[in-house]
């Protein structure tokens, strides 16, 4: 049925694919000087079509039409189909936090602060809401998420470093585009801030993975054996991140406005 899908050339940057179900999917189109072939990818930022410079537009449209069904399926799979609304001061919303659905509500108060009580997250901000309110809320959320990860990571480090007999020099947290974590040549671990939204088990897998790189700096079978020894349930967590990860990254971008492309 993909043949019936219609492609509309929106502005210069976006294409719109009308699916058989009646939905419309926006696809970012980008030419790339080093691209060899047409490529359709799905990330937390949405769908994106990359093509070599000078490709005829008709060819691009045809390619998108041909793979429309795949795109629809993939967006469904990664639960990126319907993006939640943007963060708005005063409007309560629901966010994932450590793998659990948490209600985010807003309250008025003299000092900006963020507090978690049970399954509720309360953002307190001074009235009246103005231009600075949303950035302040995002900054609060960011430092709250950072604190969440740091708490867990500090326990994981204490647990796994003696076992490995190696320790990272520092742990940095920031939104990452496609990775979940990395280890640089100076033994500094960088973790994706979006892991604060994932279940602690997933975070633990990423931390163990990076710490194991302190010993073996490759993804050789020896490396995976080491991961297995330290954290036998790693496969489940890796698979969990593969299926749900992009949605988490999109969610983080919504909360703290991280760049997605």
């Amino acid at each position: 049925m993909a043949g019936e899908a219609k492609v509309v050339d929106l502005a210069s940057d976006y294409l719109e694919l009308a699916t058989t179900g009646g939905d419309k999917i926006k696809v970012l189109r980008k030419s790339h000087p080093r691209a060899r072939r047409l490529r359709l990818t799905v990330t937390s930022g949405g769908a994106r079509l990359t093509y070599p410079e000078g490709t005829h537009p008709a060819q691009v449209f045809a390619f998108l039409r041909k793979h429309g069904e795949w795109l629809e399926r993939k967006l469904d799979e990664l639960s990126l189909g319907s993006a939640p609304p943007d963060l708005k001061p005063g409007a309560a919303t629901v966010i994932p936090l450590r793998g659990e659905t948490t209600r985010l509500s807003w309250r008025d108060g003299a000092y900006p602060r963020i507090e978690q009580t049970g399954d509720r997250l309360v953002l307190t901000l001074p009235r009246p809401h103005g231009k600075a309110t949303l950035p302040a809320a995002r900054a609060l959320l960011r430092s709250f998420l950072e604190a969440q990860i740091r708490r867990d990571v500090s326990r994981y480090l204490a647990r796994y470093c003696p076992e490995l007999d190696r320790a990272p020099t520092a742990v940095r947290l920031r939104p990452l585009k496609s990775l979940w974590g990395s280890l640089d040549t100076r033994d500094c671990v960088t973790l994706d801030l979006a892991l604060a939204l994932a279940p602690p088990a997933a975070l633990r897998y990423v931390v163990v993975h990076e710490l194991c790189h302190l010993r073996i700096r490759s993804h050789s079978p020896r490396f995976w054996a080491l991961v297995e020894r330290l954290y036998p349930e790693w496969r489940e967590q890796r698979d969990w991140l593969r299926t749900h990860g992009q949605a988490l990254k999109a969610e983080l971008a919504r909360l703290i406005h991280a760049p997605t492309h």
Partner: protein
Amino acid sequence: MFFRNLTLFRFPENTTKSLKKIDTALDGHRLRPCGPMELSTRGFVSPFGRDSEELTHQIGAFILAAVGGEDRLLPSVVVNEELATRLAKIAETKGRRVGAKERKQLKEEVISELLPRAFIRPSRLSAYLDTEQGWLIVDTSSRKASEDAVSQFREALGRFPAVPAAPEESPRTLMTDWLIRGKLPQGLALADECELRDPAEAGAIVRCRRQDLESDEVREHLKSGKQVFQLGLEFDGRVGFVLGEDLVVRKLRFLDSVQDELGEDSAESARAELDARFALMSLELRRLLDNMHEWFGLPRPGDRE
């Protein structure tokens, strides 16, 4: 010899055993003089100063050591200037331009000529280990210098899995809360210094010194969403310091009540004085670190979750 800054590391209990032979381990890694063609050397020196041979000073569970370094100072401007003169000379006498390869060669020549004549800058960095509680405290606020020191220990001891202190509770959130509510944990009091920052990327920074931290000016900044990144504190009326959100303790000083306990009899040998000061400092700091563990949660590696 009182430390001015503290960078905190923790190491697991199973490392304590290897610290029993620390003297012999460090002895193999004494500071060598910087050779004529070497840029820098690192190694252990005596905490007692240049006249002494001992590399550690031990009081109970505390071991004091010092990492020394020698760096050759050869500013790149000096090299470039000399290189430029030589290039000009070649251009003048031989009437040709110098290619990239020859230029590189010439630069290396210049460096090898100047290096033996360059000044040597000595440096030393004190550190102590609390073998009972598993702390390594380095007297610096620079992350790079502290990592350098830890890797010296690592090299000397063979293995030394010390982790930078990683708090469970975010110091930034906690210190902001202290300042907003004016309610601090038992024993702590606000001093007169702080750094407030907007946590957004490239956000505003406000630093104040000799400032009443409970004044309205500071409150206005907190109302606009700034958070505390550094806070001047006094603990028990005995130590004053500035605590950073990275848990680095800066501007550490012992207040009068502690200095008085030390007494005036500094006429004794320098050795006795160092011994007294180290004993005093390590005990004071153990109390401070115990409390910091209570406030922020600084789990020791190897302790089960």
